[in-house]
């Protein structure tokens, strides 16, 4: 057991190291370059989103039915943070790699390994500093949201906070990959290439998983970008959120296994393999299909009465789709029904039948193409519809129940014609100037502390 005295003995140097790491990140160009590029990028995302949302809102303000489609989550938040996501994917790794890679290159690591802090705590301090730098970069999207609110725009707290949480977890995963690459690679440049290969590789994985076989789809669920898409739909995906955290923290923890230069190659290989194995096991275990719908318009949910009955369908529902995964009908079915059913029906099995259709423009060889077959116990039903209005009664019939939907207040929508001219001045001029000023200010060596100013010969 660690005594309080020992805890204090660790906390003070740890705090000192955290401050040191943060100062180094703020003294480097990578962080300020990230901010400087993010400002116009996310700003453009917001300005364009506000303009398009405003154009759509002009009509929607006259027709309440159309207004219901006007959600700030889709119209403003996702596009603004979409530009921020690009920054996290392409630029943030350089900030994270610097925290670890520079120590290897400069030889500082050899000194750090002799400090009274375990390597794991040192990596934790670096990760915390990198995380703090990322949180500081939120000034860009948060200022966009401030403009939106000042224009009278609506933001639902739960879905907004959930989306930011998704981006934070995504950034954690990227930082973990960057740390691991920096620990493995001989130089920061190689580490950057490895990290970008991973992050951009996830885009390829997403594309392949969307049209590939089941095992590729399952692998695609591990992709951080896929997880982020769930957050963008207003979902809090419990498994994917845990997987992102495990990926970020796990890869950073793996650094402590492979960094020490005193390890033999065999020990390094064994530690690395064991660590990766444990990490993959944790990732697989973390991928539970449970999720919570935090979208204000409940887009990921059915009527509560339907949901209650679907949750009782525990005799094993199997859905066989005679559709190619890349078919637009299959995509619509996935977003309208399948995603929601996966969250609700226990033990749901989804099968993609062999259709003989090759590629997006290829013709299907199967006469049954387009059919979706539902098998529940001995009961069986078929349909070509991808509308919940038709499919939910069909499923209730298979389960032998009748459902009366609960009356719900319809989502009103939040149309708004916002003027983004002030935001343009902020993102394209004022904010970059402030960023440059802050970079210049923090690059200065600072004032000597009083105990050193008193030394004879000290600079004034």
């Amino acid at each position, binding site marked *: 057991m660690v005594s309080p005295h020992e805890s204090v*003995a660790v906390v*003070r*140097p740890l705090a*000192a*190291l955290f401050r*040191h790491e943060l*100062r*180094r990140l703020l*003294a*480097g160009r990578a962080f300020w370059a990230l901010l400087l590029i993010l400002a116009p990028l996310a700003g453009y995302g917001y300005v364009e989103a506000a303009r398009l949302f405003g154009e759509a809102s002009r009509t929607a303000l006259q027709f309440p039915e159309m207004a219901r489609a006007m959600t700030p989550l889709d119209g403003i938040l996702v596009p603004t943070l979409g530009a921020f996501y690009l920054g996290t994917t392409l630029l943030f790794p350089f900030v994270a790699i610097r925290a670890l890679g520079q*120590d290897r290159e*400069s*030889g*500082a690591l*050899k*000194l750090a*390994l*002799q*400090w*009274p*802090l375990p390597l794991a705590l040192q990596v934790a301090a670096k990760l915390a500093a990198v995380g703090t730098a990322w949180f500081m970069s939120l000034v860009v999207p948060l200022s966009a949201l401030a403009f939106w609110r000042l224009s009278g725009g609506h933001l639902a707290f739960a879905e907004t906070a959930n989306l930011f949480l998704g981006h934070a977890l995504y950034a954690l995963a990227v930082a973990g990959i960057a740390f691991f690459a920096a620990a493995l690679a001989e130089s920061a440049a190689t580490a950057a290439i490895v990290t970008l290969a991973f992050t951009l590789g996830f885009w390829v994985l997403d594309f392949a998983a969307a049209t590939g076989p089941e095992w590729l789809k399952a692998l695609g669920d591990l992709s951080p970008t896929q997880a982020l898409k769930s957050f963008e739909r207003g979902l809090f995906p419990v498994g994917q959120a845990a997987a992102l955290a495990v990926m970020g923290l796990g890869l950073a923890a793996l650094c402590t296994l492979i960094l*020490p*230069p*005193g*390890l*033999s190659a065999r*020990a390094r290989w064994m530690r690395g393999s064991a660590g990766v194995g444990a990490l993959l096991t944790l990732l697989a275990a973390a991928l539970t299909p449970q999720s919570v719908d935090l979208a204000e318009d409940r887009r990921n949910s059915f009527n509560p009465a339907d949901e209650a009955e679907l949750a009782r369908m525990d005799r094993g529902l199997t859905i066989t789709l005679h559709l190619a995964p890349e078919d637009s009908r299959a995509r619509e079915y996935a977003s309208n029904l399948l995603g929601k059913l996966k969250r609700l029906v226990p033990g749901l099995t989804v099968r993609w039948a062999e259709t003989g259709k090759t590629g997006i423009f290829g013709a299907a060889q199967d006469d049954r193409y387009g059919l979706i077959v539902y098998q529940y116990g001995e009961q069986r039903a078929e349909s070509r519809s991808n509308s919940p209005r038709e499919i939910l009664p069909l499923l209730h019939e298979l389960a032998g129940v009748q459902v009366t939907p609960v009356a719900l207040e319809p989502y009103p929508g939040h149309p708004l014609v916002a003027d983004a001219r002030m935001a343009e001045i902020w993102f394209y001029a004022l904010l970059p100037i402030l960023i440059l000023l802050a970079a210049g200010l923090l690059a200065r*060596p*600072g004032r*000597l*502390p009083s*105990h*050193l100013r*008193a*030394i*004879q*010969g*000290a*600079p004034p």
Partner: protein
Amino acid sequence: MTQAAPLLSVRGISKGYGEALVLDDVDFDLSHGEILGIIGPNGAGKTTLMECLVGLLAADGGDVSLGGTPIPVKRRREAMFYLPDGIAPWSDQPVWRVTGLFRELHGFPLDREARVLRWLELTPVMAKRVDALSKGYRRRLLLALALLTPQPILILDEPFDGFDLRQTLHVMDLLREVAAERALILSIHQLKDAERICDRLLLLDAGRRLGLGTLAELAELASAGKADLEEVFLGLTA
């Protein structure tokens, strides 16, 4: 009467890379307040020996004891601090931030940091960034960092590299003062410098110990009479 155990006892340290043996069964002791110099031609295994001692490199065999008690690799950093040669850490930070970090990490009082900076005549450059320092000042900063550590044994790789004669003599005086409290192991390329400061010398060649002792003992070993270290070195490594 039993003889007190040496501060540090190194037995049978070996290290190889594949077929190549870099360190071959190296032994030596280090006493309290002693300055031991490791000398040898390029590629003799000096740096490898120091890195194996502190655990930055995994030795293939051998034991290290502190005060007669074996210390496992994981705990070596409690006993020894090693300052490598050719490193340029935290170059984007001002000098006072780097020394301040070491002071805070090791929980030293403020006046100790001020004293070390004064000792090493770093006060005029305290506010400068490390990458703006001359080579000599950079070496002094690294020495300052080594002096801002609490371990009883300091291991310094080429501590006089980058200094002119006057600076070298100044740093030697300083290290002599340090040796009153901490034992030192110095890897030194310049034999004149080694002769000036070291109490004993460990001569390595191709990973093997060719000699260990005072200059007089090494001269006797080399059958070189009252020769200086350069002659002894040439005699033993011929």
